[in-house]
């Protein structure tokens, strides 16, 4: 078992340093690059925080939908092939809901401020 602090805490510490101490003293193109760098660290933190739980939920849904165990990437490949062949479609019970939940979980990590995502969260009353 690896010791503390956790990767989440370490990544956050770097992001906070860059945000609070470096941002005020940098300008021009490097300021833009710094913003990108901070965004990356924030994304990594969100993935470390949320990723495991959403992957498990996705795998469980896929197992039920496809009747297929396996790694998440294998399950997703299988789902992709079935959609491509027309074996499952939006009329298939659970498919639409699965795609929505999976996509919302990706946005929660990738771009939680994306307007379409915020609109869909409002719809869920979150």
């Amino acid at each position, binding site marked *: 078992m690896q010791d503390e602090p956790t990767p989440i805490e370490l990544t956050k510490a770097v992001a906070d340093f860059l945000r609070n101490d470096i941002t005020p003293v940098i300008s021009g193109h490097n300021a833009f690059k710094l913003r990108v760098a901070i965004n990356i660290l924030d994304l990594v933190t969100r993935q470390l925080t949320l990723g495991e739980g959403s992957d498990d939920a996705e795998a469980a849904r896929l197992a039920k939908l496809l009747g297929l165990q396996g790694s998440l990437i294998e399950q997703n490949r299988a*789902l992709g092939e079935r959609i491509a062949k027309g074996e499952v*479609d939006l009329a298939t019970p659970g498919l639409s809901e699965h*795609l*929505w939940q999976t996509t919302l979980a990706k*946005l929660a990590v990738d771009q939680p401020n994306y307007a379409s995502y915020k609109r*869909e969260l409002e719809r869920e009353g979150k």
Partner: protein
Amino acid sequence: MIEDELTRCVVRWYPGATGVTAAAKLSGGASQETWSFDILHAGGKHGAILRRSPQGYGAAPTRAAGLDAEARLMQLAHDAGLPSPKVMHVLKPEDDLGTGFIMQRIEGETIARKILRDEQFAKARPILARQLGKVSAGIHSLPRDQLPSLREMSATKEIAEMGREYRSFDWPRPVFELALRWLGDHDPGPSKEVTLVHGDFRHGNLIIGPDGVRAVLDWELAHFGDPMEDLGWICVNSWRFGEIDKPVGGFGSREELFAGYEEGGRKVDPDRVKFWEVMGTLRWGVMCCGMMQRFRLGPDHSMERAMIGRRASETEIDLLRLLAPRGG
């Protein structure tokens, strides 16, 4: 120094030119660069833009029209009275600047967030969708016999190309599969009318002033095809920059866009526009994945490229909103 080369070039064709100043690179990948500079002459300065492939980068990517074609299209658009910069000079070998052209610089803004939020564009925003409808009608009306040779695309070819490109990444995306399937099922078939299509008619390629649209830029993806493609592409949610209830670029409605188009003497087919909006959403998603590959494989190992890979999921939620909207 590029200013020396530009000076040697402009004195040959600009009457009374004495030199150039303020050369600054605006953007540049490995194969194509854009420079801004001022031509100095007895009466003052003349703002200019150089768009070029440096020497040694002759071969254009397969989808690109090529800089000679871009210059010709801009000039034709300008001559037809469309908002387009005047092409001042097409580079020749003796210019020693590579291939490309020099055009008039048009002042204004291309950054979407400023156009959508800054006070100085407050009067432009309500009229832009209609204006752009009319401008795209003008583009689609340019006489074919004067146009350069360009690739010809159709909905069917584009579906196949998107599918091939997506599969080349070898990373499963069930939402993209769903979109490809939907596009195949809704392929509108060959367009009754095949016209010039700008191919990248959206924020970033439009110079906007407080008075409205001033120039259409970047004809790199111009081709022959279904004119409804340009109308669908400008409605893609990725170009709304947060203003998701205003489908045209975050500033206007489809109705305004269509009204402007019909004012320009052309007919709209809303079903085809919808098809191309779905296609465009998928296309931007595939482009995000492609840019991520360029990061991973090395030619552009920047943080920005890496992060663009994480924007593909934005197009997945937009595809779901288009194809599998949730009730309520």
